[in-house]
């Protein structure tokens, strides 16, 4: 490879992932992070007769982490796609800092809003570093080459995602968890104000789940990025998020801080399980007891 190693010279600008503690609620008003509002969204797939989401509104708190939870098929990924402008709403609108995302230039939007999809494909022989560089696409003109700013953003992203040791590896040779870190580095390199993550921890082993959660916690403590994350694991959601939105059958059933949303009633109503919920200093702890069978 003729590519020189390009380690960032300034590493002092962020305190690094080691200092991630719960900051105990973010002071949203103080940040200049963007807000993302979905208003009365009706989202449907062309081949399906009924809309998946039929007129729901959702607001992501600026600089905070909002978690979307719900059972399979509840529409959380669809809602996220709608917010990311990947799925055009039949009705309603998505506003990013007050501007309709559909009126924005695609590249301009991609500089402000990043999306990590559930499944991503790439050629096997691409290196992690080259993959992460693709995250700079929206920042470059058609004929522009990479700049120093690109190199810095990529460095920061690789460091934040903790995949520096993988940078010269080919993506095809990585484990599922390592791949996920590389893809997270790509969306981080995109350097957006809003980050939408679709089930970033699903299918990962415990270690990589924790790695991903630490990345999100770092973003949360920096309060510069508005994060919306779809999570399968309600306990993870409670631990990670400032706000939790619970969906079922395409409807928002509850929203608010984790302590208010993650309750035994909600688990029984939305997830159809009987569970014990105990408040701990790491947020609510959920112990599922049994599945509820409808009579």
């Amino acid at each position, binding site marked *: 490879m003729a590519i020189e190693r*390009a380690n960032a010279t300034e590493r002092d600008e962020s305190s690094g992932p080691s200092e991630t503690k719960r900051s105990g609620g973010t002071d949203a008003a103080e940040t200049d992070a963007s807000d993302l509002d979905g208003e009365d969204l009706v989202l449907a797939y062309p081949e399906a007769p009924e809309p998946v989401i039929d007129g729901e509104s959702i607001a992501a708190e600026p600089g905070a982490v909002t978690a979307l939870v719900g059972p399979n098929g509840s529409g959380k990924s669809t809602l996220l796609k709608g917010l990311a402008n990947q799925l055009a709403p039949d009705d309603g609108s998505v506003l990013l800092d007050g501007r309709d995302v559909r009126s924005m230039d695609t*590249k301009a939007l991609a500089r402000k809003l990043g999306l990590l999809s559930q499944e991503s494909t790439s050629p096997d022989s691409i290196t992690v570093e080259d993959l992460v560089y693709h995250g700079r696409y929206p920042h470059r003109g058609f004929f522009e080459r990479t700049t*120093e700013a690109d190199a810095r953003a990529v460095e920061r992203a690789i460091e934040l995602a903790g995949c520096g040791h993988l940078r010269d590896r080919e993506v095809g040779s990585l484990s599922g968890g390592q791949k996920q870190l590389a893809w997270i580095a790509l969306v981080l390199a995109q350097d957006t104000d809003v980050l939408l993550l679709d089930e970033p921890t699903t299918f990962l082993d415990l270690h990589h789940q924790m790695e991903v959660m630490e990345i999100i916690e770092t973003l949360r403590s920096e309060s510069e990025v508005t994060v919306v994350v779809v999570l399968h694991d309600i306990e993870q959601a409670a631990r990670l998020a400032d706000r939790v939105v619970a969906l079922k059958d395409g409807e928002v059933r509850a929203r608010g801080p984790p302590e208010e949303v993650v309750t035994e009633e909600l688990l029984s109503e939305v997830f159809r399980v009987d569970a014990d919920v105990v408040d701990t200093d790491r947020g609510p702890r959920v112990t599922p007891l049994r599945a509820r069978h409808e009579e």
Partner: protein
Amino acid sequence: MSRDGPTVGGGVAGGRAAADDRLGWLFDPRLLTVAAGSLALVVLAGLAQVSFGAYSMTVGQAWRAVLDPAVLLDPRWLLNFLVGEELMRAITGFRGELPELARETLVVWSIRLPRVLVGAIVGMNLAVSGAIFQAVTRNELASPFILGVSSGAGLMILLTLVVFGGLSAFLPIIAAVGGSVAFLIVYAIAWKNGTSPVRLVLAGVIVGTVFNSLQTGLFFFADDIGVVQSAIQWTTGSLTGTDWEQVRTALPWTLVALTLSLAGSRQLNLLLLGEQTAKSLGMSIERVRFGLSGVAVLAAAASIAVAGIVSFVGLIVPHVVRNLVGSDYKRVIVGCLFVGPALMVGADVGARLGMSVLTGADAQIPVGIVTGLVGGPYFLYLMRRQRNVGDL
């Protein structure tokens, strides 16, 4: 790499950016090897082409004829070949007779060398066109002709030869137009709130089938066997009788198409990450896909216009190159510029001289037959070796 301390790591931020600006990626050892090997092949095959034939000469004579200073150092002769006599006179203001050339030089420069050049140009175009189509459809089995280009061109060729005989002077342009129109039809059929790679390929197969039936039907309306033979030459691809005229026809379009494809290589790389990722990174995917397909059609049309429909080159070459230099499309495109001509010029040696070596008959076969004979088994070999052919 280790990330155990803030001081670890050589170089500065932007080192890569600078390397990128300096075209550092070009000096990849694998790419250099591929380029050098292919060049050697082109030179060898080219030498064989200029040495042997009805007027035979030794390799040394041929070599001297190619490097004859009477041509190489005389801009009038060079321009005469490259842009044609009229333009040469317009550019240089030269009125008299051109100085006479040695017999060998004349044979080599006016008959045999242009054929090698046309072969190289066609090889480049087809290879790059195939590489682009494979990225756009995200399918390794795509080729310039999967999206209906060849069937459209073939149908127009036959229509011209059989029905509108008077237009055969414009055959190259008509063939290229036919290919482009067929591609537009394919795109229109595949369009339904946007396209998808699978729909594009399916529409290409459908249009191809219909057009091929029409082609076969047209054969029944041909009055004499000569028309049929010339039609077959066109639809299998042949370099027989190509001249500087063909070089002049293809070269400008080739330069445009190849420049655009190099410029588009970053978009191609992003397309390989899948539609969703490309979209979320802000690519206007339909515009890029259509534009790049247009570039690929242009490249294919340039080669169809001078050599007809040569099979398998556009399918095989990108494959070979990707196996040799990796999936980065900047390198793949550059690699195609070398490997394409190597295959095409090499195959043309077989097409032009093979029959006289094998049977002693002084006959040439269309080069498309040779590329098919070489390409088919190679593809079989790939299929056996790789478990998942088809995934890009």
